[in-house]
């Protein structure tokens, strides 16, 4: 009893002291339902959360770490050995190395590979605006009041689902020396010794052809979502079809266009399979013959070639640079989007 009283008194004193400084912290009602919801919510997302953390973020951090080492597959045997060996020339060695010109004449050696393969990737990005304009035209035709639009949609979507490897094999023969395009149209884009501009255009034709269907389906969805009553109002006010399209349809289609642009730039910077299968690895692995050069192999192909040659630290550093470029491109697009919203 006494003890109890004492403790009660102490409690009271403590409460009083607390009163002076801050309001009494209200005892939180434990809402069982709320708690359940919290726990189950976390259980449901846990797999995705752990997967993203481990396979993306931790992998990215590891990649960053590897890019500071001199991890070479042909010199070091275990992963831990590689991780432990910070590059003797300093942390930033690979980042300096990729911008290092060789020789007196400036661009040669490592930085030549770097800038030219990056330039090739950027050139391949030309396919994005071409594809968007084409698919916008096609989707406008498809949303007209005509029959068989569903069938056309399916037909245009087929190349999108088709296996890229098969398509690349087909493309080599279609556009190659003496191939279909040469026998019928006299176009030869892939002949040995041909200029690399033709080879690049060949890849752009492939990516545009293959990517058209997905964009068309998205644009058709966007165009169907455009509010028809605006159209009618504009028509009654005497607007012609051209100004209706630019003043009413396009602004409402803008979110779709923005989505397509962002995703295709992210994807386009990572273009790899098509040129790599058509031209081969660059830098060449071992003694394998390849027609891949720094003018037709994109940046990811270059990373892959460096990786194949066992220079894993170097390849990691190149990968980090790619991630930074993609991050900034996405950021710029979102910034432009935000500015447009303000205006």
């Amino acid at each position, binding site marked *: 009893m006494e003890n109890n009283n004492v403790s009660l008194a102490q409690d009271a004193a403590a409460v009083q002291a607390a009163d002076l400084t801050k309001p009494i912290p209200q005892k939180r009602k434990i809402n069982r339902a709320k708690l359940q*919801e*919290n726990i*189950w*919510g*976390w259980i*449901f*997302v846990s*797999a*995705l959360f752990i*997967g*993203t953390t481990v*396979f*993306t973020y931790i*992998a*990215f951090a*590891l*990649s960053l*770490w590897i890019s500071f080492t001199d991890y070479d597959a042909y010199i070091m045997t*275990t*992963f*831990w050995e*590689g991780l432990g060996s910070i590059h003797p020339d300093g942390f930033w060695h690979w980042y300096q190395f990729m911008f290092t010109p060789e020789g007196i004449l400036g661009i040669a050696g490592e930085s030549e590979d770097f800038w030219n393969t990056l330039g090739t990737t950027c050139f391949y990005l030309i396919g994005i605006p071409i594809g968007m304009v084409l698919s916008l035209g096609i989707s406008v*035709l498809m949303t007209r009041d*005509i029959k068989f639009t569903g069938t056309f949609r399916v*037909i*245009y979507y*087929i190349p999108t*689902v088709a*296996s*890229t*490897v*098969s398509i690349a*094999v*087909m493309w080599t*023969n*279609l556009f190659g020396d*003496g191939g*279909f395009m040469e026998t019928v149209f006299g176009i030869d884009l892939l002949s040995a010794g041909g200029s690399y501009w033709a080879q690049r255009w060949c890849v752009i034709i492939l990516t545009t*052809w293959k990517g*058209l269907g*997905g964009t068309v*389906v998205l644009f*058709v*969805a966007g165009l*169907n979502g455009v509010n028809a009553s605006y159209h009618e109002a504009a028509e009654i006010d005497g607007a012609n079809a051209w100004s209706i399209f630019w003043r009413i349809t396009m602004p409402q289609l803008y979110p*779709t266009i923005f*989505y397509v642009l962002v995703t295709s730039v*992210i994807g386009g910077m*990572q273009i790899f399979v098509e040129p790599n*299968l058509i031209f081969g690895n660059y830098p060449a692995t071992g003694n394998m013959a390849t027609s891949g050069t720094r003018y037709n192999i994109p940046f*990811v192909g270059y*990373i*892959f070639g460096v*990786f194949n040659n066992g220079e*894993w630290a170097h390849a*990691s550093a190149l*990968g980090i640079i*790619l991630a930074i470029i*993609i*991050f900034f491109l996405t950021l710029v697009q979102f910034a432009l989007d935000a500015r447009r919203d303000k205006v």
Partner: protein
Amino acid sequence: MTEQVLLSMEDEVLENVQSEGAAEETAAETKERGKFGNAMRKAGNALKNFFKRIPSYLRTALRVFCGWFGFGVFGGPSNKKRKKIFFDVIGYVILIVGGVTMLYPFWWMFAASLAGPTYNANGDIATNALTNMITTIFWPANTSRFGLFYNYEQAITLLNSAWQTVTIGGQAYAFWRSVINTLLYSLIPVTVGVFTSASAAFAFAKLDFKGKNFVFFYCLAAIMVPFPSIMIAQFCVYSSIGWTDNGLAMIVPGCFGAIMTAFFIRQYLYGMPTAILEAAKIDGAGYWRQFVSFVIPLAKPAIMAQFILSFMGSWNNYLAPQVFITEDMWKPLTLAIGQLDTSYSTDVTNAPSVMAASVLALLPILILFAIFQKTIIGSIMLTGSKE
């Protein structure tokens, strides 16, 4: 007299006012249109002058000609129905030309894969199989003399000889092994991954828990990290724990789900009424029960579409197995075709077999797409997501 004067004055005043108004309007218009607009206007005026100078017999001809298509030119009658038909025909022509461009390469591929060499009277090869293959237009000049689908058998034989270590009971089965591997790499991770993604989507769309927005954007930001920049670290870890020798590197990561799949299903679930789940909750169903017996059946179209799309993505995946799989035993079909392509694509006798293997890799996906095209395209159009 006075009245007339007054009236005429009024008219003048009115005219003045009107003309001033018109002048103001044009000034405002030119301001709004800017340089480009002015240039367009000038061009329009030039065009008008040009039309004025057209001789009358040509005008009549043009009026009749355009009138037939429903365009009212030079005072001719405009016909809406005719006009629509005109534009419809143009639309159809463009769409059909585009559709042929989309479909023809697949036909070409199939036809070319059947090519064989042409023999002359002595039984020697006059034109080799490679030439016959690539000069195909609708049908190869000569199909193989060992049967129409000889190249398909040959593709399997060639791959078996390329990857000789892949045997079962002394029998080489590299080609079918690669098909099995492809199925393993696409069915297991996609089934498990779509399930985990759907559960995450359910939590994102219908549950309210602490840190929901954080987790969502944390996962969404991961799509900005490109695969080529993380594949090397992943490869190093996988190879040090032995996953590159047994294909686990292609299976385990996919089982944790993908944010784009979750995002897609979440969009779908937003459109689903919450009342059903609340009714289930009142009847005593826990969250797991809600997910398994209500959300999955109700979101079936979205889940099916995502399943098929992910399946196709895994089936067509090339870079990941190229990096992660080091043993021939565990290589998928895409790598098999890549191998055939690098070894035989310029081989004068075996080149059609490479094409045949490509057709084999393409066929299951095309059949799958043909069966589920309504679900796939419908779902993409519904939620506006490509992958």
